[in-house]
């Protein structure tokens, strides 16, 4: 096969492309759009939370029934649009779903995985390029279908991203759309994960042994296994719930339910807890799917900007594998309050404590990597450095949740919301930003603007803490999650001020994304042109031209050393590439 990327018609090159780099970019852009949508929904919700039942300024009128309801201001006679309880729940459920399944996973795995992984393995493409294309083209329709839920009667799914039955079973049509969307998205992920594993295992370049793989590739490999083995149970659960909703079965329905005074005429005999087990069997591994690629990116950026090898590379790898393995046996820590007895809860809180150990090791390795370094404060590095304490906060607050006794007080409060947003927002999202700034030159041949990047970083760092720090205090004060209006309860009203603070934090955070959005698009066309290896990095992707041509490498890469050979004594440069590019390039 020769290089004929230039002869390809537009639609083959940019739309139905089979080139992993194009697919990676498609994933990235689509996921960023979904990220913005998910954030937009949350801004509306945060407005309601700070100013309960006040008309939503500006965009309220565009949201439509049943998300908002029109109310008239008795004093001025103006019509305002306030969020409804159902609208709030729809936005909440869809925020969670979009962020997890349509934004972060596609960005971290579909985007970065696709773009970087084959390059880092020294492969010309993914093992199955057409399957790769199919994966994107199941993801996008799945996502669109999911969003279509807003246009059916009753609005989109509104039973939380966890979709616990029987609430989800008796919910409006949006839930069916949600389930169909999930089944499609899961299929997409499965296609992707098979491709990733085969690529890493079979397509590594000559000399690239497993322990010469960059940590990012390891993280993606473990992630792919999590997707491969944890997603199917949710698919099964989704099929069962679809049957419950569409075919009238009662897998999750014990029978004899009386909804709004009307007895449901079902066969009964099902178990609501079955869903929770199947869901969390997926969803706990899923949270590591959210964080592992992020950890991978952070490791690349840290090694590159400290100009020295990562400390404890092997412990990082073993910890990631152990983390992946353990994540399959902690799921019930989300269910401590379902009435679990002592034996089971003992088991699951013990495994939960055990699983925090590899995370501590990973973080320790990354921090110690800084010792003896020569740290360059590039934009990706700023995000990476901020990631460490932020993930630390998120991870540490997982401990009180993982111990059953303290979980009694904290379960389903904003403490939980605070915990996981610290890991996914200033954690994973920061890692994603780091990755975008870091690999942007590889994808476009141009660098993103440094100063805009710094503004973006500083603003995001301050405001994201303003958004999420109050949540811990709210949680301690027993403000429950998924509350349309927390002032409805005594303890909620007492700390409403924190909620207002969080909302303004969120608006500030939104404002500081503008430099990023501008920078992103502007740099594609007008960013500073840079060569193949602007960061003086060592891993294989930097041996290919920027942007890499069809087939990636100008000559077959042959790897002679480990991934992070920075500042090797006696070398002329402070980096030794795994496979130096041909001199003519």
């Amino acid at each position, binding site marked *: 096969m020769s290089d004929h990327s230039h002869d390809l018609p537009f639609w083959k090159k940019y739309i139905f492309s089979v080139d992993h780099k194009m697919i990676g970019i498609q994933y990235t852009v689509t996921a960023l759009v979904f990220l913005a949508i998910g954030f937009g929904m949350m801004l509306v919700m945060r407005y309601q939370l700070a100013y309960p039942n006040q008309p939503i300024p500006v965009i309220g009128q565009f949201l439509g029934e049943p998300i908002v309801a029109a109310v008239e201001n008795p004093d001025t006679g103006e019509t305002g649009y306030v969020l409804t309880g159902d609208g709030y729940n729809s936005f909440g459920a869809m925020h969670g779903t979009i962020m997890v399944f349509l934004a972060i996973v596609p960005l971290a795995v579909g985007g970065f995985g696709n773009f970087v992984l084959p390059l880092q393995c020294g492969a010309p493409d993914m093992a199955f390029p057409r399957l790769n294309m199919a994966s994107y083209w199941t993801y996008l329709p799945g996502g669109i279908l999911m969003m279509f839920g807003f246009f059916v009667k009753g609005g989109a799914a509104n039973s939380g991203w966890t979709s616990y039955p029987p609430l989800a079973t008796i919910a409006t049509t949006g839930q069916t759309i949600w389930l169909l969307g999930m089944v499609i998205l899961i299929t997409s992920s499965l296609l992707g994960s098979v491709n990733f594993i085969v690529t890493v*295992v079979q397509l590594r370049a000559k000399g690239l042994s497993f322990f010469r793989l960059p940590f990012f590739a390891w993280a993606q490999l473990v992630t792919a*296994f999590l997707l491969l*083995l944890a997603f199917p*149970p949710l698919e099964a659960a989704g099929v069962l719930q679809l049957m419950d909703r569409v075919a009238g079965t009662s897998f999750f329905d014990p*029978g*004899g339910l009386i909804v709004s005074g009307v*007895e449901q005429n079902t066969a*009964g005999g099902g*178990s609501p*807890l*079955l869903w929770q*087990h*199947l869901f969390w*069997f997926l969803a706990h591994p899923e949270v590591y799917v959210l964080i592992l690629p992020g950890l991978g990116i952070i490791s690349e950026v840290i090694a590159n900007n400290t100009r020295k090898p990562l400390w404890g590379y092997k412990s990082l790898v073993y910890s990631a594998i152990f983390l992946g*393995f353990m994540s*399959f*046996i902690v799921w*019930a820590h989300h269910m401590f309050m*379902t*009435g*679990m*007895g*002592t*034996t*089971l809860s003992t088991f699951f809180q013990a495994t939960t404590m055990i699983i925090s150990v590899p995370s501590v090791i990973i973080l320790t390795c990354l921090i110690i990597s800084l010792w003896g370094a020569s740290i360059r404060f590039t934009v990706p590095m700023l995000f990476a450095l901020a990631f460490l304490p932020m993930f630390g906060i998120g991870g540490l607050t997982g401990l009180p949740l993982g111990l059953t006794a303290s979980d009694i007080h904290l379960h389903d409060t904003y403490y939980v919301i605070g915990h996981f947003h610290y890991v996914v927002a200033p954690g994973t999202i920061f890692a994603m930003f780091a990755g975008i700034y870091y690999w942007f030159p590889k994808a476009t041949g141009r660098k993103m603007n440094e100063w805009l990047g710094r503004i973006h970083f500083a603003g995001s760092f301050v405001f994201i803490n303003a958004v999420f720090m109050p949540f811990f205090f709210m949680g301690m004060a027993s403000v429950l999650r998924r509350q349309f209006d927390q002032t409805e309860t005594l303890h909620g009203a007492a700390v409403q001020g924190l909620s207002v603070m969080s909302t303004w934090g969120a608006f500030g955070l939104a404002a500081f994304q503008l430099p990023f959005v501008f920078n992103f698009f502007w740099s594609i066309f007008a960013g500073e042109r840079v060569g193949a290896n602007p960061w003086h990095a060592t891993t294989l992707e930097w041996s290919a031209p920027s942007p890499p041509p069809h087939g990636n490498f100008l000559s077959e890469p042959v790897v002679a050393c480990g991934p992070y050979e920075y500042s090797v004594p006696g070398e002329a440069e402070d980096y030794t590439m795994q496979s130096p590019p041909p001199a003519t390039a």
Partner: protein
Amino acid sequence: MAANAEAHQAELKKYLMVFGALLVLTAVTVGVSYIPWLAANHVLAIAVALLVAGVKGSLVACYFMHLLDERGMIFWILALCVLFFITLLLLPVVTSSEVVAGHADKLYGVGK
């Protein structure tokens, strides 16, 4: 290439033998379910049925899918998968064992 052809013949024969075994075992499963005393012993019946199914499944996996010849990495991946599979099969135990822990009972009598 004579030896090769012979080997191939043997391979074909092996497949047909496994096929025969599968048919026989199917007959056994069905037949056994008609034995009244066995059928009356619920636990035993389940054990026998699953045992036979297990043997049949292994035959398919080992010979039709050539799992016996796969000593590479996939073997370990499948082992991992089986481990998680077993974890999954523990779900019923996990769900039913303690949640109700003896004290809890049904809210309304079955069928109201």
